[in-house]
């Protein structure tokens, strides 16, 4: 990527993040300037571990382009916890607070373009600027709510309902993630998922 293209992407990515924060938190655009200055653009190829297992994460990420798969190993079996897409945030499950090495791996499903900020810089800015502390507090709450909602839909629904919920929550991501990964995430076999999918597609075609 050329330097020029990079700086253009960075501007666009920051604009997207800025607008998201303005909508979610109700903060004024100018108040976000010092926060935006701390973010930097990074990009990774497909299947790259952005956060590896066993480390304490230093950065918090915002996804501008691409999809991230969050997973861990339990008894040598891979378990996918969730996916994050454009507009999503992730940050190593708070290993920077617990100081315990992380158990999760954050890996790109396709080429990703991200904005990242150092936790220590964010923390320092929060101390100086009330507006940023406010942004952080509200985003944290939203983050938690999203987690609870996902967990709930996971535990209480039938296979079919889970897939529908997945489509609702993740939208067109469903077509960008390998089928076996989605099946793993939803806790069903790829065969069951295929069956549910074809039924779902059929009923949607009929509706159209």
């Amino acid at each position: 990527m050329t330097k020029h293209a990079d700086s253009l992407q960075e501007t666009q990515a920051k604009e997207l993040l800025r607008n998201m924060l303005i909508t979610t938190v109700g903060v004024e655009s100018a108040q976000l300037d010092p926060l935006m200055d701390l973010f930097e653009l990074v990009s990774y190829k497909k299947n790259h571990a952005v956060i590896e297992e066993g480390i304490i994460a230093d950065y918090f990420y915002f996804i501008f382009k691409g999809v991230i798969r969050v997973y861990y190993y339990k008894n040598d079996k891979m378990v996918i916890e969730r996916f994050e897409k454009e507009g999503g945030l992730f940050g190593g499950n708070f290993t920077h607070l617990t100081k315990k090495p992380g158990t999760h791996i954050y890996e790109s499903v396709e080429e990703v373009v991200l904005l990242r900020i150092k936790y220590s810089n964010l923390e320092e800015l929060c101390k100086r600027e009330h507006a940023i502390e406010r942004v952080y507090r509200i985003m944290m709450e939203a983050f938690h709510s999203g987690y609870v909602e996902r967990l709930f839909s996971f535990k209480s629904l039938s296979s079919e309902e889970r897939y529908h919920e997945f489509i609702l929550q993740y939208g067109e991501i469903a077509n960008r993630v390998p089928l076996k990964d989605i099946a793993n995430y939803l806790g069903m076999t790829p065969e069951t998922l295929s069956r549910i999918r074809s039924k779902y597609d059929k009923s949607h075609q009929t509706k159209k």
Partner: protein
Amino acid sequence: MATRTQKPTAKSSKDYLAEVIRGITDISEENIKKILDAFELVEYDKNTQIIKEGEITSYVYFVTKGIVKIYYHSSGKELIDWFAEEGTFIGNLYSHIMQKPGFDIYESIEDVSMLRAKYDKLETLFKHNHEIESAARKVIEQYYVKYVERVHHLKGLPADEKYHLFQKHYGDFVHRIPLKYVADYLGITSETLSRIRAKENKKKRIN
């Protein structure tokens, strides 16, 4: 911490809350007082639904005595999310933020004393006070970490490991929760749990 046999007063409960907040963040005594002023003492008998299914919560709670069970219904079955003991903040943050009816039920499994504050009142405090907002963010982070550890880490583990992890998280208060609740929470049968417990007690005696 006040002993559990004593019934907490508003004063002892607020002292307890202040102590927990000081443990999480650096904050002036003046601001601690402002936070405490937003809270009031409430008491519930055993087996009371404090937050009902489908309710949009307007309060955040801090447990000063007793245990609250947090669960929901699915296909006619009761599924337990977690247990909140003394020193824990609870409140259906999800329902409050989304302004959607919550799916969880919050029910006392012992006589419970709690401090509660209206979300709106706290929001106003946060808005006008940087240090208090910062304290709130740190409390939410801690709550989130705890939640993730409790709910998530149990997924996919064998039954006995689940129980050990449960003991580690909850400490001695394991013995205050009815066996069938613990089994339900861990997603195993009461019989399996009894077996695991018996094995463990045997080991303890030998050691």
